[in-house]
């Protein structure tokens, strides 16, 4: 999916889908540590290993004690994960769609995120919450939202999202290693997108962004699926003579301030792109920090690009226009360079 890593000859590398990369991360983690558990609606093989097959094969391989299909009970799923984690297990709980996290908000926000602090450090909740979402799949207003800002706003939570197979594997492995609750956001419409096969045991540190393309005129910060829209905007930017430095944030909370600030202090311009609605979004937090730290060195106001402040629409032309596209990203970046 990332095509700019010229040192890696694409044809020679075996390709896997995002689903396969995530499945492999789960399988390798379960193989490496018998404390790792998987639970969620339909996740076991009698239920076909999940609605998209992400957990296919795991229960056959590791047993249904460790890979448990659950009732459609998001509070109970999260409670089971939290309770088991308090006693040293490492549950990876699937909340099928990110909109369904709303049903389990009490368990996630009031309990998973806070038990370490409220217990004075006596207990911890080392769980991973895997959840999928994204516009573009005709799933309408209750199956498509990006709610990363909700969880990034809660002290005690970590939030991560991958844009490619290598990072998906590496971030998920790091999330399972992590001593705290981590929300791992997957993109449903690009589950079947192919990318290089990850190396077994690969890790991507939580809190570390990646400068994917170096540039001098502006910094574009993004994550998850729309990061690939940023990459797709690069030819148009080249053509317009705009040299963009492109950062895949990968970790939304904590976010890699050092990498972003180092880049923007060089380019003087910053555009943040995400699929979630712009208002009160992750872009606002990044923009606030960039403007405070680099106020006198900015050549243009920090810009944010997200979805309009509306639920995800069903009708195809509306849905297509909802999230940032390569074309809109290119237009925005060019206008920032030109100062218009």
């Amino acid at each position, binding site marked *: 999916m990332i095509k700019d890593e010229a040192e890696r000859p694409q044809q020679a590398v075996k390709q896997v889908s995002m689903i396969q990369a995530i499945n492999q991360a789960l399988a390798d983690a379960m193989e490496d540590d018998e404390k790792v*558990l998987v639970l969620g609606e339909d996740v076991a093989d009698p239920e076909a290993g999940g609605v998209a097959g992400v957990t296919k094969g795991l229960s056959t391989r590791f047993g249904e*004690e*460790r890979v*448990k299909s*659950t*009732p459609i*009970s*998001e*509070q*109970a799923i*999260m*409670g*089971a*994960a*939290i*309770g*088991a*984690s*308090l*006693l*040293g*297990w490492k*549950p990876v709980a699937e909340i099928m769609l990110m909109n369904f996290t709303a049903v389990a908000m*009490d*368990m996630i926000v*009031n*309990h998973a995120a806070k*038990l*370490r*602090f*409220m*217990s*004075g*450090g*006596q*207990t*911890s909740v080392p769980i991973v919450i895997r959840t999928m979402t994204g516009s573009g799949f005709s799933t309408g207003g209750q199956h498509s939202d990006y709610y990363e800002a909700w969880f990034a706003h809660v*002290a*005690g939570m*970590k939030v991560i999202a991958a844009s490619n197979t290598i990072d998906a594997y590496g971030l998920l492995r790091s999330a399972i*290693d*992590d*001593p*705290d609750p981590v929300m791992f956001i997957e993109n449903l419409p690009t589950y079947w997108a192919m990318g290089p096969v990850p190396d077994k045991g690969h890790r991507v540190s939580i809190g570390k962004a990646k400068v994917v393309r170096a540039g001098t005129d502006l910094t574009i910060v993004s994550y998850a699926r729309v990061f690939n829209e940023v990459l797709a905007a690069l030819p148009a930017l080249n053509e317009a003579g705009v040299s963009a430095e492109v950062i895949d944030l990968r970790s939304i909370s904590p976010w890699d301030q050092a990498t972003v600030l180092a880049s923007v202090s060089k380019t003087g311009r910053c555009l943040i792109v995400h699929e979630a609605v712009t208002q009160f979004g992750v872009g606002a937090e990044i923009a606030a920090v960039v403007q405070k730290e680099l106020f006198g060195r900015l050549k243009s106001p920090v810009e944010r690009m997200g979805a309009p402040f509306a639920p995800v629409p069903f009708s195809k032309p509306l849905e297509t226009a909802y999230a940032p596209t390569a074309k809109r990203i290119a237009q925005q970046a060019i206008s920032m360079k030109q100062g218009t």
Partner: protein
Amino acid sequence: MVPETQLDTKTQLSIYRTMALLKANDERSRLVIKTGRIVMPYYSYRGQEVIPSALCANLRDDDYLCTIYRGIHDMLAKGLPLRALWAEIAGRVDGTCKGKGGPMHLTYPAKGIMVTTGIVGSSMPIANGLGWASQLAKDDRVSVAMFGDGASNIGAFHESLNMAAVWKLPVIFVCQNNRYGEHTRYERATSARQIADRAVGYSIPGLRVDGNDPLAMYAAAKTAVGRARAGEGPTLLECMTYRFHGHVYGDNDSYMDKAEKAEAIQADPHNRYRAQLLSAGVATETQLAEVEAIIEKEIDDAVNFALASPFPGMEEMTRDVYGALA
């Protein structure tokens, strides 16, 4: 119900000692708040002492407890030390949670006290997870979820009972039915004739028990604990009791029926059990008075310890939000 003769003297005295501790601790808590020495939200459990006292007589230290904001009695019965309790509710560094949890969020893993929640109903989903961990570890530990009658109307109750039944978890759901959910009387908020009936919908045993009768409560708990330990799955116990005070200390309890309340206080289960022990010759007045005097001294010590303990330093504000990578 198990006849009194089936409970040995030691167990009866042990249950009484716990009840006396809970009663004295509640009375002292209200006094200390009244005199302004500690400022905290306090949810009195006075009147409900029998339930955890008799239940915990069936539990081991390594069994797990998830309780709620009205749960200090549950934790004391499970073995929470008084000094750690008092320092915590005073917000001091020597508290169970360095003063950062407070009276609604005590944790004491050494006695299996894993979570105390301030959210109605949320003890149950997490107790399931503790039970799942025991099932995975193949130990024979039991997890107890405490909650009130109001909590049986929240979704978490229904999700939890169903999952526990499907997974056959070693969890006991203990409803302390004190007749009020916050300010609202049972009948005005709950459709079920009795909460125990709700177990039928999940194909698990549901039993209504007199939660003010130590022997009945002990017997019901013993059966439920035995089932859980043997891997036979969860039980719902509805323990009938009464809350002597308002929802939270200092509230205007005008919503409580005065005659009903007076009657309940008149029938104080603590005093009743004490009288029973004396009349049955299980203990003498001197023995019980001595037990009570020791408890008062222990509470004196704990309060003094708590008030002498320092407040946490400002570095604790952001400590324990995240852990360090192993």
